[in-house]
């Protein structure tokens, strides 16, 4: 499930386990390698172990078992302040009693960098986040977005090769968050730093990352680039967690290469792609994205299986239409269609037939 060891790994987790109380493993057998310059996001619900992994990497938690390496060197016994890792905290943790410039200067001072050098670097870092005029202010005088930028600048000012971010955009409003997502990825790629980003917001994970590691129950469930993750989830958890998904459960009737037929509990048959099923008769949950459901018969294969669906609700959302259907006993079946001039607007009470390409419907674990 976790990725294989790669030669160019910069950060490596090797069989890492973590337990706080000696009874429950919060992180179970974690193997992960991150190449230099990658933007990796750890995504998962709260309690999935993602933040614990980040804290172990930063040095604030020690691994119960296993090894964490940076650039091939084990850092298990290196205290946090010697790891040279930049970190952005959830609540920014800007020192309230220091001005912005003093905050930025702090990591340079403790590294005993000369005054003129320090000032130059602080100025450069402030300019980098477009906050050049704010050096003399106190953190409390800045808005959330500005504080966020300063926290970022402070984590970067001493030019670390690795930067960790712990849900840094959680406290911002939606618009600002989207802007900052863009800025952070830009900056990270421009500077060529390796970034490990923790979030529970899947949109953030998808838009920002080179690769996303989906955590659940102390394990990495899947680690892939965003498009692969979205389009080819490897199990029901990932499918459910990333994006919106319709699920139907049933039994595998037949498998033929990349296609299989699933008999739903209501007795109807559908086409699917076998992902986690390999034998006839096995129980499965099929998952299909709302935007891949087709209700225009002319656009389906002639021999494709279709399902009867009753329209329950039509929601106009501007750029898309969102329609709730009852399909095979499932009242929460959603389809999304683009708001195009020729798009059909379904009316509640109407009965339609829906279908999809076998490749878009993934038969996963039950």
């Amino acid at each position, binding site marked *: 499930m976790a990725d294989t060891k790669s030669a160019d790994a910069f950060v490596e987790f090797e069989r890492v386990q973590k337990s706080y109380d000696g009874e429950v493993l919060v992180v179970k057998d974690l193997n992960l390698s991150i190449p230099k310059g990658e933007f990796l996001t750890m995504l998962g619900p709260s309690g999935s172990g993602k933040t614990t992994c980040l804290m172990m990497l930063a*040095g604030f938690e020690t691994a119960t078992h296993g090894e964490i390496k940076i650039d091939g060197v084990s850092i298990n016994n290196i205290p946090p302040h010697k790891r040279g890792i930049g*970190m952005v*905290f959830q609540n920014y*943790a800007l*020192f*309230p*009693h220091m001005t912005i410039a003093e905050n930025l200067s*702090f*990591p340079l001072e*403790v590294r005993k960098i000369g005054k003129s050098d320090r000032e130059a670097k602080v100025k450069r870092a402030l300019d980098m986040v477009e906050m050049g005029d704010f050096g003399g202010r106190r953190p409390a005088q800045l808005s959330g977005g500005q504080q966020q930028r300063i926290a970022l600048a402070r984590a970067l000012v001493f030019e670390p090769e690795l930067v960790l971010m712990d849900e840094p955009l959680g406290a911002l409003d939606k618009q600002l968050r989207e802007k900052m997502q863009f800025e952070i990825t830009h900056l990270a790629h421009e500077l060529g730093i390796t970034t490990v980003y923790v979030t529970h917001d899947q949109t953030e994970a998808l838009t920002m990352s080179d690769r996303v590691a989906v955590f659940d129950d102390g394990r990495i469930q899947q680690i892939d680039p965003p498009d692969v993750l979205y389009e080819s989830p490897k199990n029901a958890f990932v499918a459910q967690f990333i994006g919106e998904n319709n699920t139907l459960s049933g039994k595998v009737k037949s498998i033929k290469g990349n296609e299989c037929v699933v008999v739903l509990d209501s007795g109807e048959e559908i086409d699917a792609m076998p992902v986690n099923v390999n034998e006839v008769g096995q129980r499965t949950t099929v998952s299909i994205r709302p935007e891949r459901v087709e209700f225009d018969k002319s656009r389906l294969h002639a021999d494709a299986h279709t399902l009867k669906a009753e329209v329950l609700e039509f929601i106009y959302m501007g750029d898309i239409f969102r329609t709730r259907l009852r399909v095979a006993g499932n009242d929460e079946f959603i389809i999304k269609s683009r708001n195009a001039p020729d798009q059909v607007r379904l009316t509640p009470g109407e009965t339609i037939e829906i279908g999809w390409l076998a490749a878009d419907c993934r038969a996963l674990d039950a």
Partner: protein
Amino acid sequence: MSDTLNNGPVLAADGTPLKKSLARSLRVEKLRALALVAPLLLFVLFSFIWPIGEMLFRSVDNRDVGQVLPETVAILKDWDGTSGELPDEAVYKAFTADMLVAIDAKEHTKLGTRLNYEKTGMSSLFRKSGRKIKKLDLETDGPFKETLIKIDKKWGDVETWKVIQTHSVNYTNGYYLNAIDMQRTPDGVAVQPEDKRIMMTLFKRTLWMSMIITGMCVLLGYPVAWILANLPARSANLLMILVLLPFWTSLLVRTSAWKVMLQQQGVINDVLVWLGMVADDSRLVIINNQFGTVTAMTHILLPFMILPMYSVMQTIQPTYLRAAKSLGATNWTAFWRVYFPQSIPGIGAGSILVFILSIGYYITPEIVGGTKGVFISNRIAYHISSSLNWGLAAALGAILLAVVLVLYWAYDKIVGIDNVKLG
């Protein structure tokens, strides 16, 4: 548009100025607020502010002499005490007249007591002479100069009259002068004789020892507050009970306990002797001196230091320390540069509290302080309850109050009172 063109006051909808209209609408709220605090305000006024004002007034009030001896004081004004000659007959006559009235009203002993503060012997002089003056007749028994000197030869002493003259003003600075080891003399303000100088020593000692006690409390309390703030809530609560435990014990009991601990035949000395660290014949003197006072008071005032520090430290998020470490600071640097500056408001609040409390402390220095470890408040208590020189006690109290206010002001200038957090 109209805002920029019209420079007059902004008007409300009905044409009245907005400020007036706003004030009117807020008045009801203000009145209600006042009504809510009124009972406490009145209580404080009558039970606290008024008595204190009354007490402070005593520090300058000297109307006794003028009231009891009105005629004498009026005539004595023209007498030149520096000439070395006794006042003339008119003064003696006026004095006898005043005394006769005073003796009837039994006020001459009060005057004696008052003047005794300035010159010992005055009290008995007035009491004894009073009995004889009572029998005199103003019409027949003159001249009074000889008569009075016959009654007591002190009436023939220039000094006696000088004292009366010097202290005949209605409002005096004499008490304040006495409070700082000076005195009011016929020749103006002078320093007290050396054997009577004690107040300045006491003031300095009070300030100095209060500073030491405050410092000790900071040193001992800071780590405890830190632990409290950083422990999980359950253990912190348990520890908190231990910190608060002294509050549930009487102050007198705790102080007496220190007496048991510290005396020469006490627990500490016994243990040290038993351990062989101290010879039996050279037991440590750790009570009835400054050491005893500092030890006991540090113990008693420690919770007042820990509580404000704790409440401030609780608000310092642990992520600050983590952030500092992730930025490359060692544990010590992270503490010193990031945590400590943020905890200063707590230290400030605790220090003010402990310092002000200890500056006016009375019971503990009284019990464990001996003569070397007593504070100015013990002197005040002495003048209130033993010597009954309330004027002097009031003057000492006023000075103490002024010192506290000045320190408070200085602290506000230096640290800023807004930085003080009690919770």
